[in-house]
């Protein structure tokens, strides 16, 4: 059989096979393999009919060894006894061990899936670190026929996404146990989603960007609707799916028009062809990148493409909301930076005003609309829109080349810090929400400080960080973004940013006030007495994010340093 493939044919008919650069595509491949392994495990061990078949096979294997051994012993046929019996014995022992392993894994299918998932993420982190070292020592490079770029920004975005994935897995584990849903599927979906984001981070071709966008979006739609017990979750999933499909189509149309105008989908080639187009009046190209900006603006939840955000963030299961806020924003901003700052930088006079406008509208809408909300998850959804606005400040000054921390590294730093703050805050919200996530209104937080002082204190920390209070990482993040804008001479947008941050601070303080004032025995607290359960995965997530938010608030140097070295986009 194999000879069919290996036997030589005349050289003229041989096809040159591409070389696979495993280092460049390693992280997504590892995550995807882990997701497949989980699906395989789930289908073999948790299935209906297959499960019985497997039982039979395992029993057969377990007994076949010893039976064969005794048959060999007493039968008239004499074969080489020593070697054969040892092999058969080993096979028997192996089968028994396999059977025991299967029965153990079957009882703990979810735990086994979690182990596979974490192993996958950790291996991906290891490969990412290796990539970082290569990029630092020998510069960024493209591979896979120029479709994948491994540069500082790609590696930084991948790192943030992977950390968010670990938190997502931990929060998801706790949530799945609490709601008694199918476990392995959720973990597999989360890994698939992260796979798409990793591909997006290093996508150097508009087609690859689109495919990655679809991969992680489709997984997110399903995860959003994952909570069968809550109709809000299903509703959110449907809304996200319909609007997301539209935005993907808009993005794709932009890609098509850009291809029409420049003759390529490869970002490096596009950049080269733009040198001939600058100054000309190229309507096709303008419409093309305007549509791409709309499509990506939807994914990062920038106003005025934010309409889906409150509903979806509120309806989605809280671990999914945390992952969405943390990872999706980073991945989509990675693509935004790569396309606009990396590839379209020659046309910056055309796209910068648009991004400038998006930033202002996002900050104002996000901060002001959050004031009138009464649901904490919804408030944080609006605040995530405002945070997208702050990152956009960094994006639109990213093409300025003056001293100090550039816009790109400011945006990347902000994204990394926002991931920590958002995941931490949503982790606390997940715990306070209780089973079926019923308790997320502002009234449910009344008296939380008296009942759960530690949880309330940590949520206060995350909220103050999001407000940008000094000694938290949020302050440093806001500072770098505003400083990048001021360095570029844009005092107006920095001023608007600070004003909107003040407005947003009111929103966060409203939640804090509700926790610390209020009466536990007030009218709107349906859950008196019984304490909240904080299990180990959530405990790890909250304490890690809280520690990092404080650490980067006091000594931000290390992460700033990394972000500063992560600004290289595109290997020419």
């Amino acid at each position: 059989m194999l000879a069919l493939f290996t036997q030589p044919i005349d050289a003229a008919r041989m096809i040159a096979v591409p070389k696979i650069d495993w280092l460049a595509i390693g992280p997504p491949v590892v995550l995807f393999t882990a997701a497949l392994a989980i699906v395989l495990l789930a289908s073999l061990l948790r299935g209906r009919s297959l499960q019985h078949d497997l039982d039979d096979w395992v029993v057969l294997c377990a007994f076949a060894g010893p039976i064969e051994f005794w048959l060999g012993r007493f039968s008239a046929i004499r074969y080489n006894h020593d070697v054969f019996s040892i092999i058969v014995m080993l096979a028997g022992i192996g089968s028994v061990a396999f059977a025991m392993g299967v029965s153990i894994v079957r009882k703990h299918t979810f735990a086994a899936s979690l182990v596979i998932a974490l192993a996958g993420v950790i291996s991906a982190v290891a490969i990412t670190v290796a990539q970082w070292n290569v990029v630092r020592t020998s510069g960024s490079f493209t591979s896979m026929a120029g479709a994948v770029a491994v540069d500082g920004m790609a590696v930084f975005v991948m790192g943030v996404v992977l950390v968010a994935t670990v938190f997502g897995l931990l929060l998801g584990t706790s949530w799945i146990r609490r709601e008694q849903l199918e476990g392995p599927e959720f973990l597999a979906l989360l890994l698939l989603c992260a796979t798409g984001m990793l591909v997006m981070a290093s996508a150097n071709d508009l087609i690859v960007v689109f495919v990655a966008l679809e991969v992680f979006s489709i997984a997110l739609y399903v995860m959003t609707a994952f909570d069968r017990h809550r109709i809000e979750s299903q509703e959110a999933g449907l809304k996200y799916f319909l609007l997301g499909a539209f935005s993907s189509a808009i993005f794709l149309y932009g890609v098509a028009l850009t291809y029409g105008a420049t003759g390529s989908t490869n970002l490096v080639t596009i950049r080269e062809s733009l040198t001939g187009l600058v100054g000309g009046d190229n309507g096709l190209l303008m419409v093309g990148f305007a549509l791409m900006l709309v499509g990506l603006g939807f994914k990062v939840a920038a106003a005025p493409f934010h309409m889906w955000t409150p509903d979806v963030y509120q309806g989605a299961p809280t671990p999914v909301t945390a992952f969405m806020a943390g990872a999706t924003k980073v991945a989509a901003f990675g693509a935004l930076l790569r396309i606009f700052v990396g590839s379209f930088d020659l046309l910056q006079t055309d796209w910068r005003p648009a991004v400038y406008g998006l930033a202002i509208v996002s900050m104002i809408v996000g901060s002001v609309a959050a004031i009138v909300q009464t649901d904490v998850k919804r408030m944080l959804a609006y605040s995530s829109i405002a945070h997208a606005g702050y990152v956009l400040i960094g994006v639109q000054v990213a093409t300025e080349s003056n001293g100090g921390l550039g816009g790109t590294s400011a945006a990347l730093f902000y994204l990394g810090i926002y991931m920590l703050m958002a995941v931490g805050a949503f982790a606390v919200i997940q715990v306070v929400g209780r089973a079926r996530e019923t308790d997320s209104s502002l009234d449910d937080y009344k008296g939380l400080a008296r009942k759960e002082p530690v949880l309330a204190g940590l949520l206060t920390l995350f909220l103050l960080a999001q407000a940008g209070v000094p000694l938290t990482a949020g302050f440093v993040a806001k500072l770098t973004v505003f400083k990048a804008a001021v360095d570029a001479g844009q005092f107006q947008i920095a001023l608007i940013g600070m004003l909107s941050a003040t407005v947003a601070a009111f929103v966060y303080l409203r939640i804090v006030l509700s926790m610390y004032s209020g009466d536990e025995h007030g009218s709107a607290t349906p859950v008196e007495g019984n304490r909240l359960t904080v299990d180990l995965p959530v405990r790890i997530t909250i304490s890690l994010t809280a520690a990092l938010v404080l650490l980067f608030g006091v000594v931000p140097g290390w992460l700033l340093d990394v972000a500063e070295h992560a600004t290289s986009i595109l290997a020419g």
Partner: protein
Amino acid sequence: MNDYLPLVGMIALVIVFVLASFVASILLGPRNPNSAKQAAYECGIVPESEPAERFPVKFFLVAMSFIVLDVEIVFLYPFAMVMRGLGVFGLVAITIFVLVLLIPFAYLLSVGALAWGPVAQVIREIVPVRRTSVAVLDPALTEGTTGQAA
């Protein structure tokens, strides 16, 4: 642009042919309408009532899993044409590709997405009902009512 000229000609030809067919049938055809001829389908049994508008969701499951395997075939045919030219690389690549599609298929089988009709009946008898995605798709599995899937 010259390359596309035959295409334009073809489009024009199609439009002309369709219009000519309609005009010819109006001019040449004899005209004696009756109720059977006015019906949407001229042959077959006259429908008694409007067909049901609700489809079991399983049809969509089958359709979706079909698309996956259909796409697999689309890639397998070209591979078969250049199989020997690609050598071991092609074999490994296509094996990975088929595995990636086979594992979800095994998952489909294991959750019973394709088990309906008599098979679902049998499974229901031998496997105790648990809350899985199948149980949600098929209320008969959770509520213990019978004869719904068949």
